[in-house]
C-alpha cells in the first residue's frame, strides 16, 4: 500500500457532536425477548430530531415519487428478517436522512454511531466474520457525494441502495419503482443552508480571525509534500469532496467525506473513531507531520466548524412534526388508491399505521404511573389516532378487494380527521404527553430504572 495521496481527507468530519440531541434520554431495548440484541440503543425517544431540507420543497412540493421514496425509506417492510421483525428501517439509522450518533447495537457496533454492515445479525449470508463497523453517514447532499459507501466502492446510488436492502438487510428484491423512489428521495435531501459559505466554498460574512487563519491553513500545501493540502481533497468549490478514495493513515482507502454540515455528523472517520474536530486535526497533524502549533490546530478547528455549520439543524419533536410527516406519506395514497396500486397502498398503510401507533404511545394510557392528569385528553388523543389506524386498514382491505370507491371514501374521511379533529385533540393532550420534556424524562427514567435493575442482577 502506498499512501501517497495523503490528504486531509477525513479532516472533514467534525465537531460538535455533543450538541447532537439536546434532551436525549437514551432508551435501549430491554428484556431477553427482542428481535434486536438487548441493550440496543436506537435513540428513538430523542425530543430533538435532525431537520430535513428538501430541494423540491424550495420550488414547490415533493413529488409522488419522492414521497413514496421517503415512505419506503421509513418502512421496515422493505427489509428482511430481523430488521423487519425488530421494526428497523433505513430511517432508523439515517434519522430524517442524516446519521444517528447514538445508535448502538451489541456485537454490531464498537461505539455509538457506528454499525457493522457485514455483521451476523441482519443477514448472516453477508457476515464477513470480522467486527468492522462503519460510521453511519448523513445523507444530506448525497447527490453531490458519489461514489457511495464509506470506501466509495459504488458509483451508482441506485446500486448502492439495492445492496443495502438486499445484501446487508436481507430484504426481498425491491421493485424498480421502489428503488427509483428511494434514490429520488435521497437525492432530494439538501444540505442545511450555511450563510457563512459563499461562492466557491469560501467563508464570507462576519468571519473571525481564527476562522480566516484556519481557511488559509486549509489551502496551504503540506510542508513535506507540497502536492497535498486539505483543500486538495476537500475541494471547497465542490461540496468539499473530490469523489476519490485516499489512505489517510486510518487503515485503508476511504472516500473523501464532505465537510458541509459536518458539525452535526460526528463521530468522524470511516469507523467513527473520533468524537470531534480536535481529534481529527490532531490525527492529520501527526499522520502528515504538519508541524501545527496549538493555535494552528485551533484555527483549523474554527474553520471546519464554520464550514460545517448549518441553519437550524434540529427540530423539536412534537405532534406537529409527526403529523407533517404522516401527511407527507399520505399524499402517496392520494395517487395509489385511484390507481388501484395494491403493493403501494399496503406499504403506505403499514408504514403510516406504524407511525400512528408510535405516536399513540406518546400519549400514555392511564396505567402509566409516571403521568398524572389529563386522562380524558390523553384518552381522546389515543382514540383519534387509533381511529386513523383503522381507517387506513379499511383502505387497505378495500383496495385489496378491488373496492376502489370504498377506499376513496375512507381516504376522504382519513384526510378530514387529519385536518379537522386530530391536530386539535393532540394539541390539547400535549401537556400530558411524552412531548412534554418533564413527562418524557419521568417516563423514560422509570423505564431506565427497570432495565438497570434487570441488568444489575445478570
Amino acid at each position: 500500500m502506498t499512501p501517497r495521496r495523503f490528504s486531509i481527507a477525513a479532516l472533514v468530519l467534525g465537531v460538535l457532536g455533543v450538541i447532537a440531541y439536546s434532551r436525549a434520554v437514551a432508551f435501549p431495548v430491554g428484556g431477553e425477548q427482542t428481535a434486536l440484541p438487548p441493550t440496543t440503543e436506537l435513540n428513538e425517544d430523542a425530543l430533538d430530531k435532525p431537520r430535513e431540507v428538501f430541494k423540491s420543497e424550495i420550488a414547490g412540493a415533493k413529488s409522488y415519487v419522492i414521497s413514496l421514496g421517503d415512505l419506503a425509506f421509513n418502512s421496515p417492510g422493505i427489509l428482511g428478517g430481523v430488521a423487519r421483525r425488530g421494526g428497523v428501517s433505513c430511517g432508523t439509522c439515517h434519522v430524517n436522512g442524516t446519521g444517528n450518533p447514538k445508535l448502538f447495537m451489541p456485537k454490531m457496533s464498537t461505539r455509538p454511531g457506528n454499525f457493522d454492515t457485514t455483521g451476523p445479525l441482519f443477514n448472516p449470508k453477508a457476515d464477513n466474520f470480522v467486527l468492522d463497523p462503519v460510521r453511519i453517514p448523513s445523507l444530506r447532499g448525497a447527490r453531490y457525494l458519489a461514489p457511495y459507501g464509506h470506501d466509495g466502492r459504488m458509483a451508482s446510488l441506485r446500486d448502492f441502495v439495492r445492496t443495502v436492502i438486499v445484501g446487508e438487510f436481507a430484504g426481498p428484491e425491491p421493485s424498480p419503482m421502489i428503488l427509483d423512489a428511494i434514490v429520488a428521495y435521497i437525492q432530494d435531501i439538501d444540505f442545511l443552508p450555511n450563510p457563512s459559505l459563499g461562492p466557491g466554498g469560501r467563508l464570507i460574512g462576519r468571519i473571525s480571525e481564527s476562522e480566516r487563519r484556519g481557511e488559509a491553513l486549509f489551502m496551504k500545501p503540506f510542508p513535506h509534500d507540497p502536492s497535498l493540502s486539505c483543500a486538495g481533497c476537500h475541494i471547497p468549490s465542490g461540496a468539499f469532496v473530490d469523489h476519490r478514495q485516499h489512505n489517510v493513515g486510518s487503515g485503508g482507502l476511504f472516500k473523501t467525506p464532505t465537510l458541509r454540515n459536518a458539525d452535526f455528523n460526528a463521530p468522524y472517520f470511516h469507523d467513527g473513531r473520533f468524537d470531534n474536530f480536535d481529534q481529527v486535526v490532531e490525527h492529520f497533524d501527526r499522520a502528515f507531520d504538519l508541524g501545527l502549533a496549538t493555535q494552528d490546530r485551533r484555527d483549523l478547528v474554527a474553520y471546519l466548524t464554520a464550514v460545517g455549520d448549518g441553519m437550524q439543524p434540529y427540530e423539536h419533536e412534537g405532534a406537529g412534526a409527526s403529523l407533517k410527516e404522516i401527511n407527507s406519506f399520505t399524499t402517496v395514497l392520494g395517487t395509489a388508491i385511484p390507481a388501484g396500486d395494491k403493493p403501494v397502498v399496503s406499504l403506505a398503510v403499514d408504514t403510516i399505521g406504524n407511525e400512528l401507533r408510535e405516536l399513540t404511545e406518546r400519549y400514555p394510557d392511564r396505567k402509566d404511573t409516571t403521568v398524572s392528569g389529563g386522562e380524558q385528553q390523553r384518552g381522546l388523543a389515543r382514540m383519534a389516532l387509533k381511529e386513523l389506524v383503522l381507517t387506513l386498514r379499511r383502505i387497505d382491505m378495500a383496495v385489496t378487494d378491488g373496492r376502489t370507491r370504498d377506499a376513496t371514501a375512507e381516504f376522504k374521511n382519513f384526510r378530514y380527521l387529519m385536518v379537522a379533529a386530530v391536530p386539535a385533540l393532540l394539541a390539547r393532550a400535549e401537556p400530558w404527553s411524552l412531548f412534554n420534556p418533564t413527562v418524557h424524562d419521568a417516563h423514560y427514567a422509570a423505564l431506565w430504572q427497570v432495565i438497570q435493575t434487570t441488568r444489575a442482577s445478570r
Partner: protein
Amino acid sequence: MIDLKTAGCLALLAFNVNAANAAANVVSFQEPVKNYRSYLIEGIGQALAGARRLHDRAVAGDLQGAKAAWISARAGWERSEVFTAGFVPELDAQIDAWPNATSGFHAVETALFGAGRTAVEEYTTALVKHLDQLLGSLRDMPLAPQGLLDGAVRLAYEVGDSKADGGESRVSGTSLDDMRNNVAGISFAYRTIFAKSLQEADGKLATTVTMQLDRLIAIIGAPDLRRIDALALRRASEELVIALQSASNKLGLRRTALEPAAQ
C-alpha cells in the same frame, strides 16, 4: 370544561364510531354472559391462587417458586383483560400498573425477575388483597355485553402493538404469554357470548371473525417473541378489530370506541 373546537372534534369522531349503528337487532345475551362469568371467575380465581402462592413462596425466600407462581397468576389475569380495563379500571390500574409500578404484577416482576430478590411481601400482600376484592365482586357484578365487546375490541387492537422493545412483561420475558392469554380471552368472550348471535345475523361476517381470530392465534403461535412478524401481527389485529366493529352493528350494540375515556 370542553371548548367548542374540542366538541366539534368529538362530534367528528363520534360520527365515525357510531356510523355503523343503524340497523340494530335486539339480541339477548343473558345466557352466554352467564357462561362467560364462570370463565371470568375461573381466570381471576387462578390469578388469586397464583398470587397467594407467590406470596407464600416469596416470604419463604424461594425465588424459583415465586417466579413460577407469578407466571401462573399472570396467566389468569391476562385471560381476563377483556373485562378488567373496562369494568374495574381502578383495580386494573393497581394490579397492572406500568412501567415503574409501585404495586401489582409489574412491581413484583421487576423485583423477582429483574433484581432476583424475594423481598416483595408489601407488593404481594396488596396484590392478593386486590385480586380477592375483585373475585368477591364478580358474582354479582353486572356484565353488560357492550362492555365485554368493547373490551375484546380494545384488547385485540393492543395485541397488535409493537413488542420490539420487549413488550409489557419484558423483565420476565413473558410478553408472548401475555399476548396468547389475551387472545385466548378474546376468543373465549367472542365464541361464548357473541358467535352464535352473529352467525344468525350475518353468517359471512361470523366466518370472517373466526378466520381473523384463527389467523391471530397462528401468528402468536411462534416459538418466541423474536420470531413474530410484527407487520403480519398488526395487520391481523386490525382486521379482527374491524370485523368485530362490524359485528357490533349486527348484534344491536354500539361500535366500540377504542379508548374507554372516549366512550
